[in-house]
């Protein structure tokens, strides 16, 4: 039996007195594309932060690609994160940012490889420009190139559509399609319900840190929750 990309049992996370996640059970098979939906404060970002080892679970067992979350270094080798806050340096050029990321991932990428990666997100002509001069959308594209640099088994997308123009939206869609074609796993946390339903084959909806729905996209579209989901956008 194939090792699931994500296996979560009884996951709970507390920040101070507030419980962000309350006993979550979830399994995502390798190769699945999952739309993670829910209103603000439902626990979507907390779940992704735990999966990427940015936060520790308060309770529960979490495994990523079969690796316990406690083995953070090994987990980080399997996961890539694309968040709405691109972690890039304004004083460096796009190419320098990518070179730095490649060195930190321990990759032996040549400059032409990195230029190709920038061209892939539509930043070929801006590769020598400082990121401080970029629009938010261009920064997000650079973040997209950076997140896929190490070719992760599991890619987590946290509100990737924020601040993107039409071309940027298309690039994220293409990235998801590429991830799926390569048999990799993607979890897309978004308020763009239509995008989530169109691009993923399964919906996991959270409400108040608990699982509100888990099933195929078609089933979600027909469920009473779909009507409520309009207010989450």
């Amino acid at each position: 039996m194939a090792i699931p990309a994500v296996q979560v049992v009884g996951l709970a996370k507390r920040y101070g007195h507030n419980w962000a996640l309350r006993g979550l059970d979830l399994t995502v098979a390798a190769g699945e594309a999952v739309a993670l939906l829910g209103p603000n404060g439902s626990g979507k970002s907390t779940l992704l932060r735990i999966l990427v080892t940015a936060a520790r679970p308060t309770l529960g067992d979490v495994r990523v690609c079969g690796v316990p979350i406690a083995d953070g270094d090994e987990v980080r080798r399997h996961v890539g994160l694309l968040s709405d806050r691109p972690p890039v340096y304004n004083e460096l050029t796009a190419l320098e940012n990518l070179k730095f990321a490649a060195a930190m991932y321990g990759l032996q990428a040549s400059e032409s490889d990195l230029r190709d990666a920038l061209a892939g997100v539509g930043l070929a002509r801006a590769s020598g420009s400082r990121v401080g001069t970029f629009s938010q959308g261009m920064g997000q594209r650079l973040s997209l190139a950076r997140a896929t640099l190490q070719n992760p088994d599991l890619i987590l997308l946290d509100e990737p559509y924020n601040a993107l123009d039409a071309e940027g939206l298309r690039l994220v869609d293409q990235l998801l399609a590429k991830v799926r074609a390569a048999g990799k796993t993607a979890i897309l946390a978004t308020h763009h319900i239509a995008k989530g339903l169109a691009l993923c084959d399964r919906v996991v909806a959270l409400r108040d840190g608990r699982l509100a729905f888990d099933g195929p996209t078609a089933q979600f579209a027909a469920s009473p929750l779909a009507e409520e989901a309009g207010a989450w956008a």
Partner: protein
Amino acid sequence: MTPLRREWRRALAVARKDLLIERRAKAAFNSMAFFAGMVLLTFGFALGPDVPAGAAREGTLLQQLAPGLIWVTILFAGVLALDRSFQVEMERGGLEALRLYPGDRKAIYLGKLIANVTIMLIMEVLVCPFAGILYSLDLWGQLPGLAGVAILTTIGFAAIGTFYAALTANLRARQVLLPLLMFPVLIPVILAAVKATGLVLHGDPMGELGSWVKLLSAVDILFLTTCLLVFEYVLEE
């Protein structure tokens, strides 16, 4: 590639990135140079160039106090560089991104340390001749000894400073807390640096210099080893 070589490459990537950012933004360097110049000038005016040091001592009071004044100036100016080194990461969520790269987090500490030591040494190369001119000190003749003491002191200072800068990076009152936390720990480094510099500048009739240099080296090794071992936990959530 061996794991050690890979981690060394990662440390150099962090150092190169920080130095490149500093070269372009000059945020830490300009404030450090301005602060150091102002403090040295203020001491020069306050103590005066002609006040004798005392019956038993040769030279002026300013020359006798110069080792202490120079190191107080350099180390306080250095706090600005240390604070900036993690502030760069906080601006666009970079610190979390650094934490999320696979690999040993010691490489991040080592890279930041190399960058901080380099920035501080460049500042010292500018500040010391300025102090030499202001206080009428013969620095050129004692250059090898002074350079040795400066390198050892800077490594010790930056080792602790980089560690505490990471520890306080997420705190609102970090600019107050950073010097408050690090200077008590740095007392052996400051003491040994001032004593050793004084002995290099004013002569060492009792042969004490070696002991202070050994103390500086021992403290450097202790600080570096301890900070490298516990840095992983500083970056935890």
